[in-house]
């Protein structure tokens, strides 16, 4: 995780996460994601290799269609950028959205 430019009062943080739960970022995980993102003031931008979407919009998040193994970049801009990025990273990589993981081969 690295801190970006500190422009006036706006903090910018970004990180990269990997979707590890079996069914990917489907509806329920997307809901959890935007619920957390919406608890913070910062703008949240999520992107995969080709699209960039609003991390507070369930419509846009679910359209990312991130499946298991996808890598996403989470970028936050605002006063609480650091906190929101941390919270989202925890949800995706540690809690795996409380979803089942793929069976180990």
């Amino acid at each position, binding site marked *: 995780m690295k801190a970006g430019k500190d422009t006036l009062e706006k903090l910018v943080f970004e990180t990269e996460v990997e979707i590890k739960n079996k069914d990917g970022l489907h*509806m*329920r995980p997307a*809901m959890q994601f935007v*619920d957390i993102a919406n608890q913070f003031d910062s703008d949240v931008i999520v992107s995969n290799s080709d699209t960039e979407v609003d991390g507070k919009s*369930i419509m846009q998040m679910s*359209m990312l269609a991130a499946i298991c193994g996808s890598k996403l970049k989470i970028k936050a801009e605002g006063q609480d950028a650091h906190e929101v990025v941390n919270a989202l990273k925890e949800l995706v990589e540690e809690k795996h959205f409380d979803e089942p993981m793929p069976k180990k081969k």
Partner: protein
Amino acid sequence: MEIKKGIAVSPGISIAKLLVIDSEDYRIPRRSINPSQRITEIQRIRNAFKDASEELSRLEAEHDKAEGGKIKDIFAVHLRFLRDRSLRKRITDLVHAESVTAEYAVSSVLRQIASEFAKVNDAYMSERAADIYDIERRLLKQLLGKKREEVGHLTEEVVVVARELSPTRTAGFDKKFVKGIASDAGGRTSHAAIVARSLGIPAVVALEDLTEYVSGGDTIIVDGNRGIVIVNPDGQTIEQYKEYSKEFVELEHRLDAIREEPAVTRDGSRITLLGNIEFPDEAEVVLEKGGDGIGLYRTEFLYLNSASEPTEKDHYEAYAETVRVFSEKPVTIRTADLGADKYTQSRRFAPEPNPFLGLRSIRFCLQNLMMFKTQLRAILRASILGDVKIMFPLITNRQELMQAKMILRDVMEDLDEESISYNKDIQIGIMIETPSAALTAFSLARDVDFFSIGTNDLTQYTLAVDRGNELVSTLYSTVDPAVLRLIRTVIQDAHKSQIDLSVCGEMASEPEYIMLLLGMGVKTMSLSPPMLPEIKQIIRSVTIEDCNKVARKVLGMNAERQISAYLRNSTRKILPEAF
């Protein structure tokens, strides 16, 4: 501008904004709006989102723990979509940019999103498209459904557009505001059509997919004379129709002028014209239109309009009200004709596979004696107020008639014991509306005072055609040679037995069939009240001699089409403005 052809079921012209009710198939066509209207549409979208969210929150709470929280999760996700500002923005942006209706914008954006989901190469994700469709439906239900509630308390004139209308629903329309009816399904003799005719609301049915072509607020012309509707007519068409509508009203007025004149043919034969009514307040319409009484008082409304079975008092009050209006003129009350498409099926635990051949009408009454006796008591009590006759529907054999009469005698005895007065000589009649009754009319005639031919059911049962099914409704014709032969038998048997005979089916409301009926020897007809003046005009323009010729000719014809065309031509010569 779009013109669609259907079946004209209730005459008259109306031009008004349309109101879509009961829309279940939500295929919303693209509709442009005036740019100044965009703000209203955007507000409607906001309200729809708000109301749909409230509905979802309720559903989410209700399904709290059920099914391991899965259903709750689904609603929770849908709720997030509704709260998603970027989704709403995409929809309102579309309204802004392209000036389209709220319905179209919602439908178009959500379907776009759904198709994007469907494209994702992952089964789990692609199936989520169904959720988006669900959200679309919920929003559209708010947008379209809102108006449904408004039908109850309308404040401006509208044309009601629906896939299908039940008679009960149609009967609930406020005549002051509902100026026209147009529906996808239905046929000439569907009960909703009958109700529309009774209320005098122009109606066109069997428009197949009209609801998919319109959205609330469009202007529509309903031409209940020609059987067409015109959606979003241009200025010139509206002007033409206003003119046409004026002419039609003038014709009506001219017909009203003969209201006080008797229904006598040019060669002096007096014909009795009665009205068919569904509700007590229609009795006034019959008098207004110059009717000589009521030939068919349908009593189903008493059962259809309330959740519980009507009491004797409910029955009595409805009958008394009507009988008082007519004082000495006849009022023929038909006992409950429930079943098939009315009432009993919808409340049945297991619907019958063939309701029209099942437990309906008199059969239903004979198996529900308490209910039947309640009605008979009320009719008998009302019989002292005027000239009340009692009529049993759908008799198929003599045994049924004897059973019904026996029950009536039981009720009379009860009344005697309680010293309640009634007309002991009340006339008893039956409807002839099944081929079996028509074929045995001679034997049935011995036990009744009158016959009334119910041409709708008689046609349906003779030709084995469901009158409401647009796939086969072209096969349905009252002037089919087979039906006419049965009708002739009934008329002849009634004459031989010297009992009264009337025709109370829709046939008697059709201008082109009047000469035929007169020629076949019919002297009493009971018809839809708004049609009374026009039918009287025809009667006053013909001679029985001419009619006899027409009937002889028709009864010698073998093809329905030939008969229809011939009858239309004969009538057109008499009353050209009727067509």
